[in-house]
């Protein structure tokens, strides 16, 4: 059921934003906080429909901005653009391949913060920028690249646990059925 997947993704986004705000051990260690929404968006782009992507962008963006000094709504568009980009090219991507997941995670982890910064500067805000921003972008991209495959593993496990198991395929073929007296049809 796709609504199970949607609810799981939105719930994960909520928990991800809380984790980013409540736990700053990685920030002290690496000098930058990891953003968990881009990997989640990559997963949604490859495995969910456009309504789920839209809901994730709006819900995740609003939750993130509500705990941040960023203006409300600034994070919606970059997340949506990332999700739309992945969704529109999902037919070309080998979604089960770890390398594809890592590369998409890396791109999303770099693209979403860059788009957000661009929007902030365009709307007249002055975020904290400097040479250290490059290091922070590198950390968030690398973190996103590593977390994206984990998202796939986690959500696939959750879906298998919460959804009905697919019916086993049988070897019966109607076109090869033998009818008595008439031979093979």
């Amino acid at each position, binding site marked *: 059921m796709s609504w199970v997947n949607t609810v799981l993704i939105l719930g994960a986004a*909520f*928990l991800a*934003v*809380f984790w*980013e*705000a*409540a736990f*700053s051990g990685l*920030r*002290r260690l690496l*000098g*930058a*906080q990891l*953003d968990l929404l881009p990997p989640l968006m990559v997963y949604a782009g490859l495995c969910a429909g*456009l*309504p789920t992507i*839209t809901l994730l*962008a*709006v819900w995740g963006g*609003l*939750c*993130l*901005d*509500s*705990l*941040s*000094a*960023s*203006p*409300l*709504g*600034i994070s*919606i*568009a970059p997340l*949506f653009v990332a999700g*739309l980009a992945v969704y*529109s090219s999902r037919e070309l991507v080998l979604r089960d391949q770890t390398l594809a997941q890592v590369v998409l995670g890396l791109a999303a982890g770099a693209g979403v*913060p860059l788009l957000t*910064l661009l929007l*902030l500067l365009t*709307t007249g805000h*002055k*975020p*904290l*920028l*400097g*040479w*250290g*921003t490059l*290091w*922070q972008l590198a950390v*968030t991209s690398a973190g996103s690249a590593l977390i994206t495959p984990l998202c796939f593993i986690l959500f696939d496990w959750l879906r298998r646990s919460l959804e009905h198991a697919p019916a086993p395929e049988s070897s019966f073929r109607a076109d090869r059925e033998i009818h008595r007296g008439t031979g093979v049809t």
Partner: protein
Amino acid sequence: MLKRSSYIIVCLVALLTLIVLNLPSHAGARVKAGLGSLFLPLLGLAGSAQHLAGATLDRVVPRRELLRQNEALRRENQELRFENMEARTLARENAQLRQLLGWQARQPLKIKLAGVVLRDPSNWWRSIQIDLGSRDGMSTNLAVLSPQGALVGRISSVGLTRSQVLLLGDPNCRVAALVENESRETGVIGASGPTGSRFVEIGFLSKSADLKPGQLVRTSGLGGIFPKDILIGQVVDTQPIEYGFGAVARVKLAANLNALEEVWVVVQQ
């Protein structure tokens, strides 16, 4: 190519983004506070988990270590009591001298203790959230101090149960400062960079500013937001700005912004 319904969704998202970005500031703040309140149950869970972990750790600490810590705390308590007594004597003497000179009496700061509950998840802002809100008497632009009394920042927005504090080093948190040197140079504290949260810059200094490493930097009281004479940090180094029009100095903050667990909010000056 996307389907027609996809283009409709794209337009709707763009419209929603524009509407939300252009909300009036008070409406946006209310929506933020409302969404932020959804995280309250998780805050309670996180607090309980930390308390449980702390209690578990306490059980495995040896008795000898506990006795040693107890003795150290008792000694520190005695020293602080003595310092407190000296401070009261000095304050009485100060008040008497002020009266003799005809100066206005200095009112002590009225402060309230708050816990730090969340930090800004973005890498380009420096802010925290504290567990006091409008129902606790919080309002915007109240100064916030570390437990040791050093300046940390100011309150930028207030919800019912929580408030957001902009920290020193955030581009939107500027402080009028004074350097304790012979010429009592004044400047403005601003951000120094996205990494290195222990350092800020003091700008708008005169080009002949005689700053030396180790000189203390305090609030000057100008601007009306931050009380006067609150410790900010100490000068690390100085460099002239382009074309020699002035100078800028790097200041190491007295408060460790990464390790804040509790803060004082100055509710009355």
